[in-house]
């Protein structure tokens, strides 16, 4: 299954400027694993030492939050994922 992940908010840090990455998987977790395979350095930006998604990250599937069972959330062919960071500046 081909899923697109929009990583534009991370692109300058982890994906060498690539804003959309095509991944395979049937759950959000599998898609993120595939993303990490393609760009290993992104792992530290997404997961803590125990493999849990950082609490300041939100994953959206087709514009809707994947919360609460984020990693187990099923996805289907051509779904679009966005990775959003919590920010606090003002």
């Amino acid at each position, binding site marked *: 299954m081909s899923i697109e992940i929009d990583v*534009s908010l991370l692109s300058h840090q982890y994906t060498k400027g690539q804003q959309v990455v095509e991944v395979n998987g049937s759950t959000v977790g599998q898609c993120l694993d595939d993303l990490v395979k393609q760009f290993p350095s992104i792992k530290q930006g997404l997961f803590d030492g125990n493999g849990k998604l950082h609490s300041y*990250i939100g994953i959206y599937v087709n*514009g*809707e*939050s994947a919360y609460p069972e984020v990693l187990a959330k099923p996805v289907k062919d051509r779904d679009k994922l966005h990775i*959003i960071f*919590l*920010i*606090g500046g*003002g």
Partner: protein
Amino acid sequence: MLTTDELERYERQIIIEGFGEEGQEKLKRAKVFIAGAGGLGSPVSIYLMAAGVGMIRIVDHDRVELSNLNRQVLHWDEDIGRRKIDSALEKLKRLNQGVKIEAIEETITEANVLQLVADFDLIVDAMDNLPTRYVLNKAALESNIPFFHGAVYGFEGRAMTIIPGQTACLRCVYRGRITPQEKFPVLGVTPAVIGCIQATEVIKYIVGIGELLTNRLLIYDGLNLKFTEFKVKKDPNCEHCSRLASKE
């Protein structure tokens, strides 16, 4: 009732369809609480003053530093070392003498927030840290006051409008913690964009026109010049608004 001067001063917005003198009178009666006189607080307060809201209370505890001046446009070279509230008060008074303005030097905490926002119609989140945003979100819910969120980082910004008891709150969307940074990267125009969006939402809410940014998180990516919108829902287990619902 609007004066002759007010009718002339606000003419260009009064002639907007759906706005009218009635909308301007609503603005004139509104009392807006702005938390922060920094990067976001500057454009929010400037445009709400210019639009002719009735009263603004702006709260901040900092003094102006040289490194603030790339984005905090209320404060100028000559203000370095002054209290931000004094610098803000001076400029805002000169901008529009028809608006009542009150500037308070205070750190917003759980202990004082309810007292600070009491009797205000709207709360604008122009803070520079997440923990205080959570304090404001909770206070807005408890006091049943609409809350206008904004946040920035680098070229990025977020905005969302919260109507207590009706829409998702900030905590429904932001569940995690981030360590407050003493210095976060930011380009001056990013809070200008987000602050203007917050001010737009405030004006729309008061006047009662348009569609509010409720149950939607707006993300601004200035680097790629993209606005993206995400649907958000009330979290039934939200530690702020679900408790409130159970009290009702």
